[in-house]
């Protein structure tokens, strides 16, 4: 807060934008993490409420086997290479595995009867499998549908809001 006469101006909030196929993990509890254009992609947010450490990963595809070169250059593009990095980055900052909450949004689907194009569904299934294999749980989710989403993650409270075009924001 900066005081000017009797007015107080709140310090501008630090917003860290997580791009597509990107990740941010932070222990700056005053920051907000945001990711745009979650279509069939998944936004996966983890949070340690005691240490106020949060991380947000924006993956596009379930499995890096389709392109091992890209998995090296852009590990956050894929769930199988991105998710372990998300957790390890949070552990490195001091997050406690037992306290971490996992929330997820995205996974929209095109109208595709044969499911060839259903990357959203495959992304979410791959997440469920990997989370279960590691004995973890998904605490809340807003997945599927035909709309894209913007995810905002407040590191002070751990609250997450989801906003779709032409609709009001709601908590995750």
């Amino acid at each position, binding site marked *: 807060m900066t005081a000017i006469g009797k007015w107080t101006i709140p310090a501008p909030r630090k917003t860290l934008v997580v791009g*597509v*196929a990107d990740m941010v993990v932070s222990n700056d509890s005053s920051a907000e993490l945001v990711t745009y*254009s*979650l*279509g*069939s*992609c998944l936004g996966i947010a983890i949070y340690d409420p005691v240490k106020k450490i949060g991380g947000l990963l924006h993956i*596009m*595809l*379930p*499995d890096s086997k*389709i*392109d091992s070169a*890209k998995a090296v250059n*852009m590990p956050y*593009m894929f769930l199988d290479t991105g998710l372990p990095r998300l957790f390890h980055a949070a552990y490195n900052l001091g997050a406690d595995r037992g306290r971490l909450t996992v929330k997820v949004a995205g996974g*929209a*689907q*095109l*109208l*595709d*009867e*044969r*499911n*060839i*194009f*259903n*990357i*959203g569904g*495959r992304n979410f299934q791959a997440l469920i499998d990997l989370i279960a294999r590691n004995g973890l749980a998904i605490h809340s989710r807003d997945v599927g*549908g*035909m*709309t*894209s989403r913007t995810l905002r993650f407040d590191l002070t409270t751990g609250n997450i809001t989801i906003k*779709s*075009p*032409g*609709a009001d924001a709601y908590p995750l």
Partner: protein
Amino acid sequence: MTAQELVAKVKNLPPVPHAALKLVSLLDLPAVSNTEVVQALRCDNVLTAKLLRACNSPYFGLAEPVGSVDQAVFILGHQQILHIVLTIAFGSAMVVALPGYAVEASELWRHSLVTATASEMIAKEFTDLNIELPVAFTVGLLHDIGKLVLGQTLTADLQVKIRRLIEHEHIARAEAEKIVLGTDHSEVGALLLQSWHLPDELVEAVANHHQPILTPKPRLSVVTHLADCVAHLAGSAPGWDGYAVRINNELVTSLAITPEQIEQMVANVRESSDRVDQFMSLA
């Protein structure tokens, strides 16, 4: 309402330079010479000035700045020039918000550029389709241009009806438009292209980008349909109904498309996002 009535209703579509349309119509010719490209552009001073400024931007990394259209075409080649001219010509027209689609300014334009990029990739991947790259790029860029018309002419009442249909019946955007309006953005877009005297191949591909033509042999609309879907999956799905797009089953069977193939294309489109950003900055 027919597509004709809708197009006639639109009064203030931003003008597209005649020289740019002339350049697109050259796509119809079996081979284009540099001279023809230069001649098409020469009559438009404003476009030429913008073109030269774009060519001299750091992105193209030219050792010596270019000072004339002849030079620019000679150094960058007419395929590159076509990309730049189309970006300049249609960019300003398409960077508009479409409240009826809940599409913010620049989103439709980005989606068009991403689809153009995907379209080139698909033309390269499915060589049997025999689609030239400049044609693929152009049709990707223009496939949703009908949304500019519908965005301006749809009343709030009609928009609500379309939205309800999509939400409650889970049908595609184009299908809902057809039910409520009797026409859809692909038909309207094709009509707009026709009124600009653009090649029939492009008109057909825009008209059918949601129902691609596969018989007697696959047409350009096949590429446009696939590119549009890949662009959506690569995160460019503007509007609240961004994913209300129906995949054509016959096309998937006919081209024997696999999930891995789609995922690879999505990854490649993401990788070329720098190029899209560069084109965004040219408009």
